[in-house]
């Protein structure tokens, strides 16, 4: 017996009740926080400075406003013809209990052209990694296994490299074009990594962005239902009694004056709110909100001219977050193009960009494929007379013994 559904059902019902109760108070809090946000319209420069000086000392994420906070720009005209490339990846992680040390990255590659000569090319490319230099990163003394987060980082790099390849192969026409990724362009997972690991992956990732910049092909990523609280972080600064921009004093959570006076911190009203809660009210269908710079450490410190900006766009009932590097964000025509194309893509895909949907379909490794891969691996190792036994633990899990 695996999951006791009767026991689980009871807890699910309790959770639903609790969620419904908290929704009412959240609505009330949201409207107060949104009111504070709207009041700050016109003082973007002030709060941008506040975000800059609080970056090191605040405990929360921050967004640096670049455009008026009440921005709600209509969707620009969608070009008749355009082309885009997209990639997505999935992986089979290294199995410590499996028969061999290896992992697999499968990259889905998509090219779509709309307009006069519509065309689509979908493919996927699996690569098996098993060499010492594939499995470990080493700086001479330290040897770090590439698995978990680091494998995801490697996959992100591979997705980017695939985009460069696709761009060279397909984006040669004289129509507006775009390279699209799923999820964030900010490599959060590397933030806590050792320096040489971060340098390794980030160096390669930024090299991919360099390559796209050189080719003049704008890069964007699309995040469906984003949960990030960066704009909310900046609102926390607006509520913080300690912030004094004129005196060069930012928020310093370790010396919170509210806490020192035994009060609840003024910013705690923002607890649990995310950026989309703030911007949902000001954006109607197809409109985009203001541009912000993400103040996450890795973005500010390591991304150079690729510093990631983001904006939100309404697609149906959802606000999507779209991220773009600085060299795209600073060109208003490019921002308009991304805005229009992302909306068109989401429209064609019924709420989610069709290019990413296709890339995912190409990349996904289903459980049946996973099993076939394992069998293939074991059979091949057996024929090669290599040691191919799984661990005792894995064997013990394969079926229930009577």
């Amino acid at each position, binding site marked *: 017996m695996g999951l006791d559904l009767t026991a689980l059902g009871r807890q699910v019902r309790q959770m639903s009740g609790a969620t419904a109760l908290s929704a009412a108070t959240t609505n009330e809090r949201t409207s107060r926080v949104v009111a504070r946000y709207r009041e700050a319209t016109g003082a973007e420069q002030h709060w941008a400075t506040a975000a800059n000086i609080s970056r090191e000392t605040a405990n929360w994420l921050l967004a640096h406003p670049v455009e008026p906070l009440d921005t709600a720009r209509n969707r620009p005209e969608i070009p008749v013809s355009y082309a885009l490339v997209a990639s997505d990846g999935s992986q089979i992680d290294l199995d410590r209990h499996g028969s061999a040390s290896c992992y697999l990255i499968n990259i889905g590659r998509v090219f779509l052209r709309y307009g006069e000569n519509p065309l689509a090319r*979908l493919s996927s490319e699996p690569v098996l990694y098993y060499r010492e230099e594939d499995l470990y990163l080493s700086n001479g003394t330290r040897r770090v296994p590439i698995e978990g987060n680091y494998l995801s980082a490697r996959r992100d790099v591979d997705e980017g490299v695939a985009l460069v390849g696709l761009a060279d192969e397909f984006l040669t026409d004289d129509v507006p074009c775009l390279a699209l990724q799923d999820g964030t362009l900010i490599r959060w997972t590397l933030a806590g990594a050792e320096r040489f690991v971060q340098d390794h992956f980030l160096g390669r990732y930024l090299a991919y962005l360099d390559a796209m910049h050189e080719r003049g092909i704008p890069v964007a990523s699309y995040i469906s239902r984003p949960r990030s609280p960066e704009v909310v972080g900046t609102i926390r600064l607006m509520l913080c009694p300690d912030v004094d921009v004129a005196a060069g004093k930012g928020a310093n959570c370790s010396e919170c004056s509210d806490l020192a006076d035994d009060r609840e911190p003024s910013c705690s009203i923002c607890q649990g709110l995310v950026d989309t809660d703030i911007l949902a009210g000001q954006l109607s269908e197809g409109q985009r909100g203001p541009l912000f710079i993400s103040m996450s450490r890795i973005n500010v410190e390591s991304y150079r001219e690729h510093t990631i900006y983001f904006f939100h766009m309404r697609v149906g009932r959802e606000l999507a977050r779209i991220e773009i590097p600085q060299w795209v964000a600073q060109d208003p025509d490019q921002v308009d193009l991304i805005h229009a194309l992302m909306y068109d893509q*989401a*429209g*064609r895909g*019924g*709420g989610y960009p069709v290019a990413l949907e*296709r890339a995912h*379909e190409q990349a996904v490794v289903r459980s049946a494929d996973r099993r076939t891969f394992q069998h293939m691996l074991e059979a091949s190792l057996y024929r090669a007379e290599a040691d191919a036994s799984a661990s005792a633990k894995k064997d013990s899990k394969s079926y229930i013994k009577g």
Partner: protein
Amino acid sequence: MERIGEVIESSTTRFTAGAYELLAAPPFGSLVRAQTRSAGIAVYGLVYEIRTGSKEPGGRAMMRGRTYSGRNLYDAEIYHEHPDLAEVLQTEFSAITVGYCERDRRYQYLPPHPPPVHYSVYPCDDAELGGFCESSDFFRSVLFAAQIPSDELLSAAIRATARARPDSRDYLVYAGRELASLLKDDYDRLTAILRRIRP
């Protein structure tokens, strides 16, 4: 003539091919020829089923005629607006094996081997169709094949052959007589087929 598809499933009595161009399967009842491993041998089949669906097992197409922004798209416009459809949908056709040819000789019985998977499928031109249908031995295989719309299939094949031949009327009369002898103990079925091939 250029190949139109490739065998994706094959057995002694029937084979299924994927069409290279979406929605461009040969017509129901038409004769197709599948290549085999021996250069001189090709297998003939009559197309009895055509279907289009997702390449993904279990996948289904979704409605796309009304866009997200409320615009209406009709028929071919949908394919124009979604070029990726041609990559994720597939048109397949199945044929019942009715004979084969070895060099210049044609046989109206099952070949020693079915066409191999991934081998090419070609449409047959009028001359080839007319030639193959000189004999009517294959009528029996079609009439008594299970799980296919055999009456409809044979009528369609006879009509197509008549169109392909200069002596259309004579051929229909000949085919009608052959059917009458095959279905001498099933009058209802015979008349149903004769109505379908009446000139």
